[in-house]
């Protein structure tokens, strides 16, 4: 009965078309780009911040958990409900308001990352974070996961490009956190919301900083016979004092899969390929490209190709960014890992990753943002085979442990979600986790928003969901 009145209230607010409650449509919303499936009670498609706030009030009254969702391209299960939940799809919040003079824009949470850059191209501006899913993923999702991308080596991740957020709280209030000034007074609550994976509230609008399009860019593709040489080239380039706009590596199995999709002439016989891009003033770009070439040559690059024009550049990047999907040609499912290691440990960790995949009998290929040591080992498998998912999870777990042991981190840019949640104690002490749990409670005392994500159960010392009322003894 409860669910029935709940759905009716939502339908009164949004009309029947924007409230999806039949079993098939609920099933379709049960998954994101990762491999886990959750349980959806009802899906809503609000078109305004007012509707989002009202939806939250209704959900709060009925104590039904709320899971915000963008395009559902996430890989860590951030948009996958763990218990029957109300999914709030933010894809209809698509307004863009550009302020050309201050190079900023107010952007609806549902605007696609690449659409924003296309929209601002006429002003010579773009939104710098460029995750591989940028053609499909939303700005709201980028804010939730503090997304990065190949070009974050020089430009920084989403948090460096968000000035303010509009947040709907558990009470259904609409808050504005941050300001258009670069350094607003008071605590930086905006910085807390970016990367909070929908656990603090629902971000409906974002004030983003736009970056001028570089006057010149050059993209180089270098092939190596040994992964070590490619890794040494990465360190060498950075040691030269260059911070390329992007510095990406793919190993051989990955290169083969990508080449089959784009046919861009990626060298499939190389053990590793490096994709480097330098941007800036034309003269500086030419000089830096020469330097990158020299470093690659001194590290035994077997071939170096410079993209002749924008079309060739686009094709190379299309290949790199389609890497994950291209894997489906090899197996029906994949698990994409996201960890960070110090650049100097790249070769060592990679050898261990190959070893782990061998031991669990999994096909593995690697693509990574080499410049900042962000590894994306990708395991391809067929989930219909008995027991394979257990092997995948066990291998993923080991990869994370190896990276943390090498001085790295759990996640580079995809977020923690469900996928890495239980590994959080590898990098955080009990006190750290408790502090984070308290922070979540400060925003969302009843844990209405995206419960069970990011923080493992038991994060809060004396985990009871809420503070113990005064005067009660345990």
């Amino acid at each position, binding site marked *: 009965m409860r669910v029935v009145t709940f759905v009716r209230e939502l339908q009164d607010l949004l009309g029947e078309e924007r409230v999806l409650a039949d079993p098939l449509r609920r099933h379709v919303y049960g998954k994101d780009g990762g491999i886990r499936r959750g349980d959806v009670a009802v899906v809503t498609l609000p078109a305004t911040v007012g509707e989002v706030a009202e939806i939250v009030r209704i959900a709060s009254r009925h104590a039904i958990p709320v899971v915000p969702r963008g395009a559902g391209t996430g890989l860590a299960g951030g948009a996958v409900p763990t218990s029957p939940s109300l999914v709030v799809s933010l894809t209809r919040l698509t307004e863009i308001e550009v302020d050309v003079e201050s190079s900023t824009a107010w952007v609806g949470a549902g605007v696609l990352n690449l659409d924003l850059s296309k929209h601002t191209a006429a002003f010579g501006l773009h939104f710098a974070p460029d995750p591989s*899913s940028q053609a499909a993923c939303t700005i709201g999702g980028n804010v939730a996961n503090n997304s990065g991308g190949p070009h974050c080596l020089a430009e920084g991740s989403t948090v460096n490009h968000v000035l303010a957020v509009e947040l709907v709280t558990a009470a259904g209030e609409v808050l504005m956190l941050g300001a258009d000034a670069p350094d607003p007074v008071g605590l930086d609550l905006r910085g807390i919301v970016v990367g909070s994976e929908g656990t603090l509230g629902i971000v409906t609008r974002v004030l983003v900083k736009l970056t001028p399009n570089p006057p010149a860019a050059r993209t180089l593709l270098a092939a190596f016979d040994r992964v070590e040489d490619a890794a040494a080239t990465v360190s060498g380039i950075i040691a030269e004092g260059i911070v390329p706009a992007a510095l990406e590596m793919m190993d051989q199995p990955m290169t083969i899969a990508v080449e089959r999709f784009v046919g861009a002439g990626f060298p499939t016989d190389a053990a590793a390929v490096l994709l480097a891009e330098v941007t800036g003033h034309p003269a500086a770009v030419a000089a830096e490209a020469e330097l990158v070439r020299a470093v690659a040559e001194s590290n035994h690059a077997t071939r170096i190709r410079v993209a002749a024009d924008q079309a060739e550049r686009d094709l190379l990047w299309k290949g790199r960014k389609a890497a994950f999907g291209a894997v489906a040609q090899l197996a029906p499912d994949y698990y994409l890992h996201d960890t960070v290691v110090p650049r100097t440990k790249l070769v060592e960790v990679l050898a261990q990753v190959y070893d782990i995949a061998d031991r669990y009998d999994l096909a593995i290929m690697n693509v990574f943002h080499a410049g900042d040591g962000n590894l994306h080992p990708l395991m391809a498998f067929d989930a219909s085979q008995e027991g394979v998912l257990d092997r995948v999870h066990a291998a993923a777990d080991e990869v994370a442990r190896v990276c943390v042991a090498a001085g790295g981190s759990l996640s580079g840019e995809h977020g923690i979600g469900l996928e890495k949640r239980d590994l959080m104690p590898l990098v955080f002490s009990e006190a750290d986790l408790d502090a984070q749990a308290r922070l979540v409670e400060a925003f969302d005392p009843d844990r209405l928003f995206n419960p069970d994500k990011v923080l493992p159960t038991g994060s809060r010392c004396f985990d009871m969901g809420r503070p113990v009322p005064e005067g009660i003894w345990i």
Partner: protein
Amino acid sequence: MGWITAQAPRPAELNACVDCGLCLPHCPTYRLTGDETASPRGRIAAMRAVADGLVPIDDAFEDMMSFCLQCRACEAACPSLVPFGRAMEGARAELAAQRSDAGRRIRQVLLGRLVTSPGLLRLATRSLGLARRTAAIRIVPAALRASLAGMRSVSRPLPPVRGATHGAQGKQIGSVALLAGCVMDAWFGGVHEATVELLTRAGYRVVVPPGQTCCGALAAHDGDARGARRLAARNIRALSGVDLVVSNAAGCSAHLKEYAEWAGDGGAILAGRARDVTEVIAGAIEDGRLPTMSINRGVVAVQDPCHLRHAQRIVEAPRVIVSAAGYQPVDLADDQCCGAAGLYSMLHPETSHTLGENKAAQIRAVGSTVVASANPGCEMQVRAHLDNWYRVAHPVELYWEAIREKELRSRENPE
């Protein structure tokens, strides 16, 4: 109860999708609604749910499947190479088999009669033309009226092309069987004229075999598998004994290339010979078998039919052709479906209308009143949404016109 037909979505097709979501921004219905269940990934998930026995084929499934335009923009964007169009045809076949209601049966019977009988189609066309000029148009259902609003006004009725043979002009390099098509024959005679002229000048002997019929694309898209198989079988017999089978409607050429699905080995052979006319003519221009005009005719807006661009991945050919005619081809803001999509404009008039308006706005932004479109459905849709001073024509018509004009001029002013 899962699937019951041979056409049903196949495990390999559904498993190929890894849920990456890169198709989403390319899907017109997802773009309009922001709704995962109106996206290619969502539709695959729904097909999987039926295949796995998690949900029955119910109203929700039918709504989700029928909302798809079958434009196949998702296919061109898919890094996992999911054959989405094929899987969707399978889902439609299942719907037809498992949820056959009176409306669908009447639609399929009427459509089956109409597209396979040139005489009946001509009669219907003439009646409609008459009705348009009188009050009788009011008895035509509104959705059908909207779909046909962009029909060509034909000043001179052209004779039917079936049964004719045209020898190659100059040295013969091959033989072509022309698919006369259903609506092409009745409504688009000018396109046939240009096609035959250009093909013969390019060195092909062109036959238009009388025994041929509708290609079956509309039936296949609508889930009428039996109809699609029957039509394919007839065409395989009629269109044999030539080097190439050419169609000047992108929807038909795309479907001919998929005949292996509908007619086994014979179908695979025909599919291997099937070409869209734009490929053949562009090839002849590039080989120098057809001329390139140096005159500057200004800008032409190129509308890419989905079944040319996405289903066949033919992008350059129409541009090569209009360039050779002396036009400067300009792309539209995006390559999304115009909303015609075969029967879609009748089944989902609102969505079709919105997409048609979007496409018309993109064409206006180009700033030319000439539009090149290589598919009859798109041509009618685009015309219906533009003011009547816009001219929408097939690229081969624009090209043939330019050649004829040049020849007339040189005859008047011999050097």
